């Protein structure tokens, strides 16, 4: 038995965060791999060891093709207690863990962070220095969803500090113009993205896309991953289309990439012309009818805010601004993927979209 592990409270949290960042950074020479990822307006350098996370970081992203002059940089140290000089992660004490209080306490100290109890998995970020640390008990001591969208929390914090936002929404586009699909799971968002991709439309991603509101609403790709449950996978004909596919992920879903099924390379960005709230109608034909901005906001914001640690108020303001900038519609989904795609395609081709 080793020494009892430190128990963290709200009071000691900022000091612990600074300690983890300092220790992870001080061992910079001991990480075998350095992975540089070129993302929209950002070059992220991850320092880590080999394994599933390194593989995921190598595969999950949509790399930026062109050099961007205004790109910033950030660095993340992915570390664990198996590395010499790295202490075992502390554990949360007896205090009730309230995520909003946790995030607020760190924000007051100029920091960001998240914690996953079951594994004593900590992530901390200093947005001023653009440096992050992920501390785990062992090399594979990460939650099962982490490889699907690796470094997601760090990107969320860094982009939020730049006034941009990781947004939980699907995208479809044509000739550079696109729509955002908002809504929690089960609304038909992912199925719509796959239906569009299989029928000639573009997408800059499902689940998490990067949104910038500086000049209209622009969506950028970050993660290339798409997911479908086995039923959707079969219904959309992916079983035949994808020659080989990995075992089901932690959610029991098939995981594949946008470029596995897209007709064209993933576009560098889409100019978003509308916010759509999909729902499975049961009707044969799809339809697009206006919906109030209030309803669209309530479809868009909750999952995007709750799935990301911290930055809740800034998220609420950001998604409010996004919703106010766009016409909003309800997309009632028909039963045929090709017909759904044609409906979206016709909408995008129209002058008023």
């Amino acid at each position, binding site marked *: 038995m080793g020494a009892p592990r430190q128990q963290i409270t709200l009071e000691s949290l900022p000091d612990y965060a600074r300690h983890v960042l300092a220790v992870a950074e001080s061992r910079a020479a001991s990480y075998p791999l350095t992975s540089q990822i070129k993302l929209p307006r950002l070059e992220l350098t991850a320092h880590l060891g080999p394994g599933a996370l390194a593989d995921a970081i190598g595969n999950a992203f949509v790399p930026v093709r062109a050099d961007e002059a205004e790109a910033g940089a950030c660095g993340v140290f992915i570390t664990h207690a198996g590395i010499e000089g790295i202490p075992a992660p502390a554990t949360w004490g007896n205090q009730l863990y309230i995520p909003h209080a946790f995030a607020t306490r760190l924000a007051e100290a100029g920091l960001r962070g998240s914690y996953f109890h079951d594994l004593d998995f900590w992530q901390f970020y200093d947005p001023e220095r653009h440096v992050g640390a992920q501390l785990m008990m062992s090399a594979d001591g990460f939650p099962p969803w982490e490889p699907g969208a690796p470094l997601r929390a760090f990107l969320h914090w860094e982009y939020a500090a730049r006034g941009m936002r990781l947004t939980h929404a699907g995208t479809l586009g044509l000739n550079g113009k696109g729509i955002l699909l908002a809504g929690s*799971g089960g609304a038909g968002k992912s199925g719509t993205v796959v239906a569009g991709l299989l029928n000639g439309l573009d997408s800059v991603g499902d689940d998490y896309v990067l949104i910038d509101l500086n000049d209209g609403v622009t969506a950028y790709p970050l993660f290339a991953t798409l997911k479908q449950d086995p039923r959707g996978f079969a219904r959309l004909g992916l079983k035949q289309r994808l020659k080989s596919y990995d075992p089901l992920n932690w*959610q029991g879903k098939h995981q594949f990439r946008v470029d596995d099924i897209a007709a064209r390379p993933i576009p560098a960005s889409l100019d978003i012309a509308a916010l759509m709230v999909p729902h499975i109608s049961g009707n044969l034909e799809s339809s697009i009818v206006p919906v109030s*901005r209030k309803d669209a906001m309530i479809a868009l914001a909750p999952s995007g805010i709750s799935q990301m640690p911290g930055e809740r108020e800034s998220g609420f303001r950001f998604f409010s601004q996004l919703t106010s900038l766009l016409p909003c519609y309800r997309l009632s989904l028909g039963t045929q993927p090709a017909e759904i795609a044609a409906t979206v395609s016709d909408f995008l081709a129209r002058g008023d979209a």
Partner: protein
Amino acid sequence: MMQQSGIYAVASKDIVFESFDGEAVVLDLATGKYFGFSDSGSRIWEALSSGVPASELIDAATAVGTVGAGEIDSFIGQLLEFGLLVPASGAPALLSSELLTQLAQAREPLKVDLHDDLADLIVVDPIHDVEEPLGWPAVKQAT
């Protein structure tokens, strides 16, 4: 008898709100609960949260005939119960003629809808579970 006649204020800095084409959406940052207001409800929320006394609001609203005093009274009760407003002291604010005109033009009954399907994700810990339709681990209340 009217239960609510005083001045109110937004309950805390965790209550944030925005208006969309005249319809308010309120988020309680601490609990993750969203509240969507009807058009008349949005006007009443706007007036009360800016310090217009309930008694003045009730007089003005009933005079333009949009909503009744009893409806406003129970609506205020609901806002207090949801933790969006608290009784306050201080100088009363005036009801603007613009807001009164908007209230007169409101078409929907006084209503606030609570959307808390994702609230569990935000507020509680520490037992994590996977709720597949959400596509992300939902957090369940510890027992």
